[in-house]
C-alpha cells in the first residue's frame, strides 16, 4: 500500500501553517506525529494534495507550568507526557493513561495536538482532557482563542477547529491538593484502541467525593461526560448504593454503538463495570500529602 502523491511543505511558524491551511483548504493536512495520518495515506483512504509539516515550529513544543496551568504544546509527544515528572506531579491522569496509548514506537512520534485535533472518541487524550478540565489553545496565525474541552469535541472526528486554525497547545488548570485521578480501559490486547475506557477526577476530602468529572471513551461520537453519575456520586463516599445509582444513570449520558466485535449493550454494561472499578481505584489512592 503506497501512499498517493502529495506535496510536502515544512512550515516554520504558526502563522505560516495557518496561511497554508487557508490557501489549500481541504486539500491540505497537517503533519505532526503522522501516526494516524500516514497509515491513512498508506491505505489510500485519504488523498490530500499537500502535507504541512509542523514539527519544526518551536512554539508548539514544550511542557511547562505557567499562570496556574500545566501547558502542553501541541507537538508534545505521547512519550514526553509518559516520562514527564511535571505531568506526573500536576495532572497524573495523563501519566496513568499514557501507557495505554498504542505502543512505545508510536508514542515516540504521536503528539497530543494531533490526537486532540483528530478527536477519535476511542482515544485516551480527548477523554482525559475533558476529565481534567483541559482547555484547547487554538490559533489562526494572528489570533489565539481558548476553548474548553467540553465545547471542543463536537461530533465524530469533528471539533471546534475553524478553517485556517490549528491547535497550538492544551492547558490544564493546576488541581488542588485534594484532587485525585484514575484511568482505566478495557482493550482486547494491550495497546489496542479501547472498547470502553474511563477517566475520572474528584476532590477527595475525608473520604467524600466531590467535583467529579466522569468521562468515558468509546461510548459515543465524542468523549462522553456522565453528568448523571457525577451527580449521584458528588458528596458521597462512593459506596455500593451510590455507585449503583451512578451506574444506573449512565444510559442517559452515554450513546455507544455496535461495532465489529462488541454490541452497544455490552459497551454500556462495560461502562458500568469500569465506573465501579475506577471509583474504587480513586478511593484506594492514599490521601495526598
Amino acid at each position, binding site marked *: 500500500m503506497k501512499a498517493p502523491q*502529495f506535496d510536502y511543505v515544512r512550515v516554520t511558524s504558526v502563522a505560516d501553517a495557518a496561511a497554508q491551511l487557508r490557501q489549500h483548504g481541504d486539500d491540505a493536512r497537517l*503533519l505532526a506525529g503522522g501516526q494516524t495520518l500516514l497509515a491513512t495515506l*498508506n*491505505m489510500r483512504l485519504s488523498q490530500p494534495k499537500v502535507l504541512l509539516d509542523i514539527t519544526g515550529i518551536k512554539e508548539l513544543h514544550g511542557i511547562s507550568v505557567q499562570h496556574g496551568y500545566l501547558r502542553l504544546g501541541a507537538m508534545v509527544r505521547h512519550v514526553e507526557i509518559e516520562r514527564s515528572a511535571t505531568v506526573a506531579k500536576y495532572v497524573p491522569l495523563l501519566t496513568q493513561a499514557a501507557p495505554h496509548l498504542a505502543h*512505545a*514506537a508510536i508514542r515516540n*512520534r504521536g503528539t497530543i495536538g494531533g490526537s486532540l485535533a483528530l478527536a477519535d472518541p476511542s482515544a485516551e487524550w480527548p477523554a482525559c482532557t475533558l476529565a481534567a478540565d483541559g482547555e484547547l489553545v487554538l490559533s489562526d496565525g494572528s489570533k489565539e482563542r481558548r476553548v474548553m474541552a467540553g465545547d471542543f469535541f463536537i461530533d465524530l472526528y469533528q471539533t471546534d477547529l475553524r478553517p485556517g486554525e490549528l491547535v497550538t497547545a492544551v492547558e490544564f488548570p493546576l488541581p488542588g491538593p485534594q484532587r485525585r485521578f484514575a484511568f482505566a480501559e478495557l482493550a482486547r490486547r494491550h*495497546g489496542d484502541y479501547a472498547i470502553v475506557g474511563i477517566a475520572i477526577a474528584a476532590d477527595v476530602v475525608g473520604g467524600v467525593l466531590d467535583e467529579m468529572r466522569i468521562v468515558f471513551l468509546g461510548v459515543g461520537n465524542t468523549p462522553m461526560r456522565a453528568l448523571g453519575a457525577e451527580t449521584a456520586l458528588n458528596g458521597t463516599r462512593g459506596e455500593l448504593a451510590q455507585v449503583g445509582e451512578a451506574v444506573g444513570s449512565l444510559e442517559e449520558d452515554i450513546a455507544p454503538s455496535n461495532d465489529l466485535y462488541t454490541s452497544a449493550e455490552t459497551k454500556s454494561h462495560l461502562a458500568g463495570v469500569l465506573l465501579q472499578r475506577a471509583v474504587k481505584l480513586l478511593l484506594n489512592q492514599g490521601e495526598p500529602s
Partner: protein
Amino acid sequence: MTDKVLTRIAVNGVVYERWIEPRQHLVDYLRDELGFKGTRAGCEHGVCGACAVRINGETVRGCLTLAVQADGAAVETIEGISDSGAISDLQHAFLQHNALQCGFCTAGMLLSADDLLKAEPGANREQIRAHMSGNYCRCSGYHAIVDAIETTRDSRRLAARSGEST
C-alpha cells in the same frame, strides 16, 4: 507530479544526500534507495512492528515516517546497530533461547527489547510482555523472546554491578 525534496540523512553513520519523493516512507527509502534490506515492511499501517528503525536514538515505525521527515536526522537500522555491537548480548540470548524462527520480526524485537532494558533495567516478565506487545511474531508464541530478554536483563544487571564494584 509532485516535487522531490532534497534531504540529507545520516544512516548508520554515513550521510546520504538524495532527492526524495515526499510520499516515500522511510522503510522504502532505506530498502530501495540505499539497500538496507534489514528493515522490513510487514503491514505498512504501523501495527506489526517489523519496520522498526531508530531516528536520533528513538525507535519508531519506519512505515509511519516519511523519509523526508528524517532530513537532518541520524537514522540507525538493524545493520548498523548490530555492527556496532550494542545489542550483541541480546542477539546472543535470542539465539540461545531460539527466540526467533523465521526471523522476519526479529530486528523489531531486538530494537524494542533494547529500548525496554535501557528504560527499565529491572523489568519483570509481565512488563517485558507489555512492552513487547507492539511487535508481532507469528512463529515463536513469545515465550522464548521473553526468556531471552530476561536472560539479557540479568546479565546486564550483573555487569552493571560488577562495573560498580571495580
